[in-house]
């Protein structure tokens, strides 16, 4: 089996802790040798995932915890974000994503609709499992050549 280091961080499901997790991922990615640009992408992607989890936790109970797992491999970083709460409607979430197109009406633009789209655009691989709460698993490779720029997709393993 491929060996890897695993780092786990648990934070309260509150917006003020998103920046703390950004510092964690930035430290881990920096240690692994990711470029400055890739580290910025990772910071945005993880913040988007946690923002979703925080909003969700808030809607449900206004409290809770978010668990973040970092799988540190030789060639990639796997990030897992789990909100151990209820699950959101995945179909709905996927419908919401996509960039603004010029023929879209500004009025129709959703103010909160870019989170998942950005995760998908900035990471090499994104998977969402909503069987027990919502788990977002995202991967970024150390070398961009491992996965084509446009080859990323959102997959769901239910």
């Amino acid at each position, binding site marked *: 089996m491929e060996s890897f280091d695993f780092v786990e961080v648990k934070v309260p499901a509150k*917006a*003020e802790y*998103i*920046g*703390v997790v*950004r*510092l964690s991922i930035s430290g881990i990615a920096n240690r692994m040798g990711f470029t400055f*640009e890739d580290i*910025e992408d990772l*910071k*945005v992607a993880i*913040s*988007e995932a*946690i*923002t979703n989890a*925080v*909003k969700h936790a808030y809607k449900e109970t206004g409290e809770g915890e978010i668990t973040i797992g970092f799988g540190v491999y030789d060639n990639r970083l796997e990030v897992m974000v789990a909100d151990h709460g209820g699950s959101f409607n995945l179909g709905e979430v996927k419908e919401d994503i996509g*960039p*603004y*197109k*010029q023929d879209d009406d*500004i*009025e129709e*633009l959703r*103010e*909160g609709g*870019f*989170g998942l*789209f*950005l995760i998908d*655009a900035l990471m090499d691989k994104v998977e969402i499992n909503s069987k027990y709460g919502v788990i977002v698993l995202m991967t970024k490779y150390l070398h961009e050549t491992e996965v084509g720029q446009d080859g990323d997709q959102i997959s769901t393993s239910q």
Partner: protein
Amino acid sequence: MNLTIDVSNKENTAYLTLAGEVDAFTAPKLKETILPLTREEGQTVEVDFANVDYMDSTGLGVFISALKSTKEHNSEMKLVHMQERVYRLFKITGLTEIINIESTVQGGM
């Protein structure tokens, strides 16, 4: 991990100078500050991004709301001195097509 917001006025322009990070924690404060400014008819709201080190989709959401408000109230919004990595988010989401963004600071450390 915070955001400071300074507001000053000169003639028909409100200058908003941001410093720090825009995320789900700081975005509500930014939204509360910028929206009232966009409700003044004929006013231009100029937002200086030179010291914004980090932004994510919650920030994009604030500027989408502000843009909508400028359309409703006949005001204008202009984003200036944006660092490359922040500009990139506006670019990949297609928002550079509809939001007035002037000159980017290359690299931006």
